[in-house]
């Protein structure tokens, strides 16, 4: 007799959207899993949760979670989420998107949202390339890495995302790899409870393309790389946390308290209208 057991997280996923589009060995599923686990552990009100993503492989994540979700244009989920959060600050707005989406085409939105300290939470799947379009070089591609558009090796310097986030003013900054499932989940829980702009970078395997071009053909091989070179160093200097083939510093980098933009603007509104009443 065959018994089909409902997956414990079934209620968090849109069955109608399955099967998902991700390759086997891809890290995106792990990230989604950790996110759902965090939401479950926090017993979050799904009605108040909005997941937003841009365009890319990881960008499909928004469609897979069974909550309010929006799949925006490439690079714009942060700007879109800003509108949601300011229009209804009661909503918990989370962005799950890619390194290209958030830091190339959408880089400007990232630094400004962090600077304003808008209360949105950004989870970036950093797979070192543009997976969706077939593996081109992106803003996090390591020097000398091979991609379809750097056939002779990448000569651009990659962003150190945690440094960028910290310097831009994020109140919470962390980096994990898809190997650090438990820590990532706890970190997402923390992120979701922070006030203001928070950011987690998840170093994620893309064996199908990035791995294939760079001598790590399976997800396992990529995870093996993460295992070998990653070191947990909480609250180390994010400026010194550049990712290299030899070293991936993971952990929390920033965890500070700062009043959010949406709180400030609503305080201002209250203040203005109080003054009006006194006339």
């Amino acid at each position: 007799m065959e018994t089909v057991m409902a997956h414990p997280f079934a209620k968090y996923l849109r069955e109608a959207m399955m099967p998902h589009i991700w390759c086997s060995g891809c890290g995106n599923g792990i990230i989604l899993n950790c996110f759902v686990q965090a939401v479950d552990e926090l017993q979050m009100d799904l009605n108040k949760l909005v997941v937003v993503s841009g365009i890319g492989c990881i960008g499909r994540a928004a469609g897979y979670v069974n909550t309010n979700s929006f799949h925006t244009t490439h690079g714009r989920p942060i700007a879109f989420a800003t509108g949601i959060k300011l229009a209804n600050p009661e909503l918990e707005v989370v962005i799950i998107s890619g390194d290209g989406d958030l830091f190339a085409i959408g880089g400007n939105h990232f630094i400004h949202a962090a600077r304003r300290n808008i209360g949105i939470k950004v989870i970036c799947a950093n797979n070192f390339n543009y997976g969706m379009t077939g593996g081109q070089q992106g803003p996090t591609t390591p020097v000398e890495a091979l991609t379809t558009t750097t056939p002779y090796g990448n000569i651009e310097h990659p962003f150190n995302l945690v440094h960028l986030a910290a310097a831009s003013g994020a109140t919470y900054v962390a980096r994990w790899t898809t190997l650090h499932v438990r820590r990532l989940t706890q970190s997402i829980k923390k992120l979701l409870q922070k006030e203001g702009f928070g950011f987690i970078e998840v170093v994620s395997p893309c064996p199908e393309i990035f791995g294939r071009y760079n001598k790590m053909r399976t997800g396992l091989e990529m995870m093996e790389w993460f295992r070998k070179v990653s070191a947990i160093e909480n609250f180390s200097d994010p400026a010194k946390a550049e990712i290299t083939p030899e070293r991936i510093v993971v952990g929390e980098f920033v965890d500070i308290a700062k009043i959010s933009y949406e709180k400030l603007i609503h305080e201002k509104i209250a203040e203005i209208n109080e003054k009006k009443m006194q006339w």
Partner: protein
Amino acid sequence: MNQKRVILEGSHFMNGDIACAEGAIAAGCRFFAGYPITPATEIAEHLAQRMLEVGGIYVQMEDEIASMAAVIGASYAGLKAMTATSGPGFSLMQENIGLAVMTEAPCVIVDVMRGGPSTGQPTLPGQQDVMQAKWGSHGDYEIIALAPSSVQEMFNLTIEAFNLSETYRVPAIVLADEVVGHMWEKVAIPPAQKIKIVNRKKANAPSEAYAPFMPDDDLVPPMACFGEGYSFHATGLTHDEHGYPQTSSSEVQQKLVKRLCDKIRKNADKIVRVEEVLLSDADIVVVAYGIVARAALSAVRKARAEGIKAGLLRPITLWPFPENHVAKIAQQTKAIVVPEMNCGQLVREVERAAKETPVTFLSKLGEEPHTPMEIFEAIRRNS
């Protein structure tokens, strides 16, 4: 909060940009995101003050791409939302205007047109974004664009834009020009309860049964917003009634894109608005919009005084284009004159609708709009 104190009423002398901003507030707009640009900046500056007074949000974004994205986000979070810009910013908004079309997000975009291409002439008027308003984003779609020709209309048509946008779940564009934006005139603002306000159709199905893109008979789906108890997905990808991506089904693509077009095309009679002056016996008709229509009206009156049977057809709705009105008048009249502050944009639509009736185009670039005399001369030459 005391609403009476914060919503304007009565007669005021103001400029077009401010009238537009006040129109937005009167329409119930409570979210503005924008990026400064001449000659639309006064809209942002005024709303930076006024939005907060009425309990709404003003946010200056990092660029116009972000502004348009934030507006769609706010719309999906339940607020009436607007942005305002001019040519260069309007170009940057185009991709996300397409997203608003595809996800049927009600929103208003104000474009106070200046001279282009590129940075062009920031402080001079133009009507060069007429085609961009219709075709600026990729893919096939229909959109609504209204052209005010007075400060009063900056107020009225901004409200109208919100009403149409909410009715049809489509972006509505207020296509103004620098002169209308910056000139000062009297605006009469009726008491709030006398202003017609339309709000989007709300979702009323039980949440399990709700399909976010399932249209009613009018081809417009009722709208749920985030946080209202419906958990739904929206995407810029081609999607079915449930909002789920269907990127390789030609059937879904045809059904969706056709509906997005048809909800405007089939309701065009209800959307289109024109002003008709002295048309019944006109031998020659001027078709003009925006500030140019004011010069045209003056020219038509002068022509009448000199015994020339001239008339004016002023499209208030540029998109959908009032082609039936033009076709009808083309059958009655001998000639049509179209003055525009560009190298020939709406005139193409006029020619298409006018069929055999000769159409003379009167271009004006790089300075003030046409004078009444210039249009009068064209009337005389063609009558």
